[in-house]
């Protein structure tokens, strides 16, 4: 099992005490393409932030790649995120002052395992995969929403992470590009053994994935 959560609970205290996540437990196998669905406001993003190690204020256990990271410090978690997790945000978050190419390269430069040339080559490869090579040297701020989302996907893939998490990774894409991204993700899962956990509102997207977890009011109702 590449990722496992046990009895996750989370509260929001502001404005009133409110239990967003209630006793969430499930596991994800290596190479699995998992989707997470549920009504708006049921806690999908909140859960994903916990899975991605960015949110550390929760009860329960989080085990990634055999390591129980629940009690890890911020610096350790940052290193895990850099190396093992690729994250595609609900709203495409790019660094506006950098070119698309640089945006994609930054996580790899931070990891520092490859030379700059190798990283650049890899980044261009990802851009080609997403049909975005012509935008490589444009500043990230000058792209359309869908284009930005594809750059964010390329960035999530650059370090060949064990787990790729996406919060509506195709939310801004047309059906053609949604199809492209779906196929890329599926290929990564089935051929490269990378694990995909994606929140989605797109029923076709969910149906085509390996497994779907359905959430309601902070609880898993099906698909554990």
């Amino acid at each position, binding site marked *: 099992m590449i990722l496992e959560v046990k009895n996750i609970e989370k509260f929001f205290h502001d404005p009133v005490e409110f239990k967003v996540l209630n006793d969430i437990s499930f596991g994800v196998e290596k190479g699995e393409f998992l989707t997470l669905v549920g009504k708006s406001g049921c806690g999908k*993003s909140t859960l994903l*932030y916990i899975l*991605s190690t*960015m*949110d550390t204020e929760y009860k329960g256990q989080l085990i990634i790649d055999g390591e129980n990271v629940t009690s890890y410090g*911020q*610096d350790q978690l*940052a*290193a*895990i*995120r*850099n*190396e093992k997790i690729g*994250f595609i*945000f*609900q*709203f495409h*978050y*790019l*660094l*506006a*002052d*950098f070119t698309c190419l*640089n945006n994609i390269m*930054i*996580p790899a*430069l*931070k*990891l*520092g395992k490859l030379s700059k040339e190798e990283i650049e080559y890899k980044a261009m490869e990802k851009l080609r995969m997403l049909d975005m090579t012509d935008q490589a040297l444009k500043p990230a701020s000058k792209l359309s929403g869908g284009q930005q989302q594809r750059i964010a996907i390329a*960035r999530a893939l650059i370090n060949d992470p064990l787990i790729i998490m996406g919060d509506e990774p195709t939310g801004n894409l047309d059906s053609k590009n949604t199809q492209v991204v779906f196929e890329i993700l599926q290929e990564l899962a089935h051929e490269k053994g990378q694990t995909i956990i994606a929140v989605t509102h797109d029923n076709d997207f969910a149906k085509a994935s390996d497994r779907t977890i359905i959430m309601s009011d902070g609880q898993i109702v099906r698909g554990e």
Partner: protein
Amino acid sequence: MANSINRKIATTYFISGRKMTTVAIVGVLLGISIFIFMNSLSAGFDRQSSESFFKTTAHIRIYKDDVLSVPLQPENENSVLIVNPKVVPTKNTIDNPEEILALVKQHSDVIVAFPQVNTPVFYNNGKSQIAGTTIGFPPVEGNQLYKIENFMVQGAVQNLEMNRNGIIIGSGIADRMNLNTGDNLSITSSKGVNLNLTVVGIFQTNNSREDKSKSYVNLALAQQLLREGNTYITDINVNVTDPNKAPAIAEELSTITGYKAEDWKAANAAYMAASKMRKIVITFISFTLLIVSCFGIYNILNMTVSQKINDIAILKAIGFNGKDVVRIFVYQALTIGMIGVVLGVGFAMILVNILSHVYIGGDIGNFPIGFEPLVFLKGILVGFFITFLAGYVPARKAAKVDPVSIFRK
């Protein structure tokens, strides 16, 4: 590698935020250049005033202090003593000058020490007389201390050594009496001694009052003018390696010799107080300016951090830790600091250079300001320190950003 990406990000922010960084750089530039300029000014004033000071003053003067009378019988429980202390009338000379001089010269910090006797005199010119003071000393040592040779317009100090009856006079006296070297001059002392001397040199300082009254003769001659023997010594002048250490050395000399040793700072307390006040004012102003420019940088970097709060959240999400974020913003601050300091040093040099060419005249000549390496060094260090500080505080704030709370917005 991981560090170089931090630097790359810092550089990108630096360039993309040109307008704000330029303002911050100008802030550092002005703060540092004015800091350096003001402190150069202070150092220049100090140097100038101590230089003009030591033209006429030794670092330490040893003399016999007045002694107050003490009651013969101490006060006790049964009797109340009414005392009226008076200065005990003793000679104000140093009893054993040779011995004292030898003792003083043994001190490792002493460069030069010699006895001196001052006496008021009249310079006679036919029927008219000019009042003044003549200073008797051993010419070689005296010159070493007062640097008279720098002010000689005719003759030389060494001539005094060779001519026992020689006298070096101020240019004011020479002008008024139409004297040149080789001419004779008759002087009369307060004790009524009349001597006919040969002018062996003429000096001219920037102080016309001195030039119109002062003269130098051999020690023996001054003693003769006072009708005293060759053991009559009132003062011993001492110069030490570092004038700023004079107070401590004076205290040591005082205990060694048993005579009063007064350093130049104590002898000129009023002047020292004024100079201290000037220093405080300059320091105060320059630090105030520094604090203002420090706040300027702090403000701008704070604004940068606020603007980049989304970026910080993203960077943290993709694996940058708190230290990386601190580095990114501190790099940015230090780049601003470096450019600001370099330009500030250049600007300070220009200011100092301009002012050093301004002619003031009188005793001073050109404005007393110069290139003081130590002041510049201090300015550079202070510049880096304030930019680091002004960058570090917002950077710490940036490092604490919680990415999730940003993404939820």
